[in-house]
């Protein structure tokens, strides 16, 4: 990958596209992060009064080398690589005028505030269209801009709760386990990126801009498709005895299918038998977890005795190392993976060796970040620059887009406009 990056031409797939970006956290920032990696100019606008406090991640841990500060949040850096950062105090008329000029020169305005914030500043979609007739406006808010809950606020865990994703993740007779991270901040950002790209394609083909109302809870709900059809078609609810059991296969498609304890402290391995052939391979392992006389079990028989089979498998895995089991089962053709800890999958896994680029941040220096899991043959992604410090690109952006001289920018700063 490094070679590819070096050989990359300066032009990216999205070079020439300018995003006027109010996104924050991960659900929004994660979307424009993708665009920046492909060459879009993403101008991130922050509030100088609250020191960028629109985004709670700005100054929170993890910190590199224990050094704290509002420009040093590790998550913020991760989610905002490659973007430019400017400040605008939207309470001032001058800043609103400057925003107007930026919108006039942008392809897309993006935000994930609670519903209605830009409208209150005087920048509703209708106004933005007056400024720039083909503007694309993409909002990502928890419950969207219509419906009884439109004023409600969310974070990733709330989106996951309300959409069914938390319920569907857990073990029987236990509370919901949910997701140990904001799966829907990542995934909401992916849907937001898709929506932005769709709107750009639409505009390139028709000349027409538009507004995208993305409700993150709604995106999340669409990730439960088969369970919802089981309800509308077969009237079978997911809330029923024995459910959820998300380490097992959904709708009894496979068995055995689980996560089993291994030798060591908090070490686990996942094993799945996709079909009778996998099951026979498992039963054929010398000194394996399944006694050979069970090799003839079909799926129905395996499902009926799944608890017993799981106990047998765990008795076998418990005295073995997870990576030994992974190697042995994969060589036999059975899906199997160690439950990898962060240090294992980041530092030791050869399949992620090219996944964590080093970016340079103004204060933090060199930091590794999440890369992108894609290789483009003609237009590779690039991540070189860390997240912007607060107002880091004021001179650059206001100079290039608004024609302001450095002294004028300094004056605006002194006046509290930026």
């Amino acid at each position, binding site marked *: 990958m490094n070679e590819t990056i070096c050989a990359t031409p300066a032009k990216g797939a999205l070079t020439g596209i300018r995003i006027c970006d109010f996104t924050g956290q991960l659900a929004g920032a994660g979307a424009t992060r*993708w665009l920046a990696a492909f060459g879009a100019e993403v101008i991130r606008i922050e509030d100088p009064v609250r020191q960028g406090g629109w985004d709670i991640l700005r100054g929170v*841990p993890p*910190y590199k080398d224990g050094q704290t500060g509002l420009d040093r949040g590790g998550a913020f850096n991760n989610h905002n690589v490659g973007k430019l950062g400017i400040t605008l105090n939207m309470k001032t008329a001058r800043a609103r005028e400057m925003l107007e000029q930026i919108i006039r020169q942008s392809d897309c305005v993006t935000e994930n505030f609670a519903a209605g914030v830009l409208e209150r500043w005087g920048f509703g979609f209708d106004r933005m269209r007056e400024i720039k007739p083909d503007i694309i406006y993409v909002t990502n808010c928890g419950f*969207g801009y219509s*419906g*009884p809950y439109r004023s409600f606020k969310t974070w990733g865990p709330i*989106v996951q709760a309300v959409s*069914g994703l*938390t319920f*569907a993740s857990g073990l029987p007779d236990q*509370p919901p*386990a*949910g997701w*140990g*991270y904001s799966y829907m*901040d990542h995934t909401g950002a992916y*849907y937001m990126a*898709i*929506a932005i*790209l769709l*709107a750009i*394609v639409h505009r390139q083909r028709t000349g*027409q801009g538009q*507004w995208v*109302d993305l409700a993150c*809870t*709604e*995106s999340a*709900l*669409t990730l*439960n498709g*088969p*369970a*919802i*059809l089981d309800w509308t078609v077969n009237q079978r609810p997911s809330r029923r005895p024995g459910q959820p059991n998300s380490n097992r296969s*959904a709708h009894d498609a496979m068995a055995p299918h689980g996560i089993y*304890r291994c030798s060591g402290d908090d070490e*686990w391995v*996942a094993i*799945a038998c996709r079909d009778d052939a996998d099951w026979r391979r498992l039963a054929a392992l010398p000194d394996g977890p399944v006694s050979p006389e069970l090799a003839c079990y079909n799926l129905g028989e395996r499902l009926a005795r799944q608890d017993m089979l799981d106990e047998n498998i765990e008795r076998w895995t418990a005295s073995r190392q997870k990576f030994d089991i992974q190697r042995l089962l*994969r060589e036999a053709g059975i*899906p*199997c*993976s*160690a*439950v*990898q*800890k*962060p*240090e294992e999958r*980041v530092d030791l896994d050869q399949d*992620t060796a090219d996944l964590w680029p080093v970016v340079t941040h103004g204060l933090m220096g060199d*930091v*590794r970040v*999440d*890369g992108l*899991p*894609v290789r*483009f043959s003609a*237009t590779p992604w690039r991540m070189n620059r860390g997240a912007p410090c607060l107002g880091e690109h004021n001179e650059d952006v206001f100079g290039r887009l608004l024609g302001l001289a450095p002294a004028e920018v300094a004056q605006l700063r002194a006046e509290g406009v930026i």
Partner: protein
Amino acid sequence: MTALTGLRVIELAREPIALAGKLLADMGADVVLVEPTAGDPARLIPPFLDDRPGPDRSLWWWHHHSSKRGVCLDLDEDEGRQCFLRLIDEADILIESEPAGRLEGLGLDHGDLLRIRPELIHVSVTPYGRASAHAGDPFTDLTLMAGAGPVWSSGYDDHNLPPVRGSDSQAYYTGCHFAVMSALTALIHRMATGEGQFIDVSMHQASNVSTEGGSYCWLVARETVERKTGRHASSFPTSETQVRCRDGLWVSSGVPPRIPEEFARMIAWVQELGLYEHFPEAVFLEMGADPKTCPSIADIGISDEATAIYSAGREALVLIAESMDAHAFFIGSQQRNIPSGIIYAPEEAFEDPHFRARGLQVQVEHPELGRRFRYVGAPYVLSASPWKITRRAPMLGEHQAEILGR
């Protein structure tokens, strides 16, 4: 027209990429699903209509292949390959998840295809990426989630219980999201230059970069997060966030008060419910409500006082939630600008009046059954590019004559 009207997409049917094709098809692309002559094995993924298995009865299939047309081709035969190449001749995007080496062996890999169709965008989605030494390893959604980080971060405070894979298929879905982002990005590049390209998506990598602090706490600070019940994994202790309400349903109390106004609203609600006297930690809420003593969120887990103040916010939420039904808590807290969520089962979310009002339930006709069913609708609402399920999933070989002329 809508965003992708007129765009021709070829999808070589495989379970992991089905959502990618659906996302394009529901936005207007003409997605042609190419199955082997015996049908894609994914036609037999449960659940089934009336619980009776059959190639046209899988609800998994119905959901994931909406708006597509379908043909059957035997790519191992000359005739099938010729038909496939004719499809490629008119295609904008190919999306596939074929086993390692298969397309190359057939002479149908990106080198061959881009030579005859330079504007083609070929998106490959594989478990570990095309170049991986493990490209041929067997996998399922469960094993991908286990290897890529999501499982390590999810589960319960009690580490005697196994870590948990989030609900089904999400490793596949994350791969699909990156596949669609890639295809559209490459399409925008092609609109500007005429140039197609090959894109190699790794599902393992896709989930690896979708675990929040699971990755970046290690990357930045060499800290290892540990799983916790129903909330973020972290390298330091945190309070529980899920509360079982009076009716037995759970709520996620989300992020507790952080700024003085939020603490003040919490105090008001506690008082309104007559619970103030039963809440010894109220003094910490009062400290949170006072701008002079309200700590910075960055001090949680670092300063004892900050931790106590934020913990009191959480405990107040617990006290209130336990005193009422889950839905009432969800609405009541949100109306007070204290974000929370009821933990709905998928069908309960689907039936909630908010999503109904927004049109998330859509009707899809199944003419062969003389019935129509409610499906889950659009993940986003584009004002000028309508999302729509234009037809139910294709039956086996349904569009053979229409597409191949035979």
